[in-house]
């Protein structure tokens, strides 16, 4: 297993440099006017970033108000006794709730849990696993759908949230199984 992890780590370290050098080299070899092509594509990236700004601001503001007002803590308090029965420590609940909404916020909560409980504690390992197991569902939904002007996300919300829920449950089981059995 350790060898496999090391290999995966090496691959992730090399991918970007290899792509940065390899793509232009391949294009040049295939006779593409690589610099012109790059500029054309890059300009498209600029336009795209400008177009998504309103979507990002709208989501950030709604989430910021919900969190800083104390409404999020209230939701956590309501759910806490229910989750205690499943062996989920209340401390990781804010992380589970924030994870679908804000990647930066979730990372902040994880960092704080690691600092307070220690990275090698049950809570620390659980928080790390949860953080690594799913992505920021609502952020991705609003970001990707917003970029092309989709208003009705249909069942993408249900699918994304099912994935989040499964990820949280699987994190609890995997951490208990791998570290405490």
């Amino acid at each position, binding site marked *: 297993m350790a060898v496999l992890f090391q290999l995966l780590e090496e691959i992730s370290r090399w991918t970007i440099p290899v792509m940065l050098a390899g793509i232009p080299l*391949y294009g040049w070899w295939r006779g593409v006017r690589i610099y012109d092509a790059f500029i054309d594509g890059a300009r498209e990236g600029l336009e795209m970033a400008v177009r998504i700004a309103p979507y990002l601001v709208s989501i950030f503001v709604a989430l910021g108000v919900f969190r800083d007002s104390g409404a999020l803590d209230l939701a956590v308090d309501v759910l806490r006794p229910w989750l205690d029965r499943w062996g989920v420590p209340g401390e990781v609940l804010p992380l589970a709730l924030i994870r679908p909404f804000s990647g930066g916020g979730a990372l902040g909560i994880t960092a704080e849990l690691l600092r307070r409980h220690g990275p090698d504690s049950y809570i620390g390992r659980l928080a790390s696993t949860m953080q690594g197991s799913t992505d920021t569902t609502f952020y991705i939904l609003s970001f990707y759908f917003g970029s092309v002007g989709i208003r009705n996300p249909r069942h993408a919300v249900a699918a994304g949230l099912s994935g989040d829920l499964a990820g949280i449950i699987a994190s609890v089981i995997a951490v208990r199984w791998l570290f405490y059995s």
Partner: protein
Amino acid sequence: MIHAIWLLLLLGGTVVAAGKGQIEKVTAAATTSAQAGVEAVLGLLGIMVLWLGMARIAEEAGLIRAIARGMAPFLRWLFPSVPRDHPAMGAILMNLSANLLGLGSAATPFGLRAMQELQKLNPNPLQASNAMCTFLAVNTSSVTLIPATIIALRAGAGSRNPAEIVGSALVATICSTCAAVTVDYLFRRRAPGE
């Protein structure tokens, strides 16, 4: 759906703040969050410009098309409504590959590109197509092999073995992706129309 969630967050936050007698927190949160939203866009700007430039070179050289052809059977199964040689397939593939390797920031431009291409195939431009829902189900559930940020965070917090959670995170992310794809598949079966 997005209307209801958005309203719930804003309204819920305002009502709770008013109930706690700290209504000024709403104003502060709104101001700083709006700022943070713009900063997030700026943070993405450089990476998007860089990778969409690279993607254009790869595309004009036929690279993306070639890779996508290799992954075609798997992608065809996931995205039955997208034609085999369509540029959307290439963008989806690049996005999934980057995600798999934990290159979240490199994956985003390809993801946005994929959405643009999928939108060209979408008969109703205001409503998500089946292929878009599947694509987002895979993306939101994350298929990362190496959660590099978390490992760095754990190392910083003084862990004895920062990378020890790679195994448990892999198990969890496989479960979350399977669940998201399954739910998406069930919805698609029940309502095959666009």
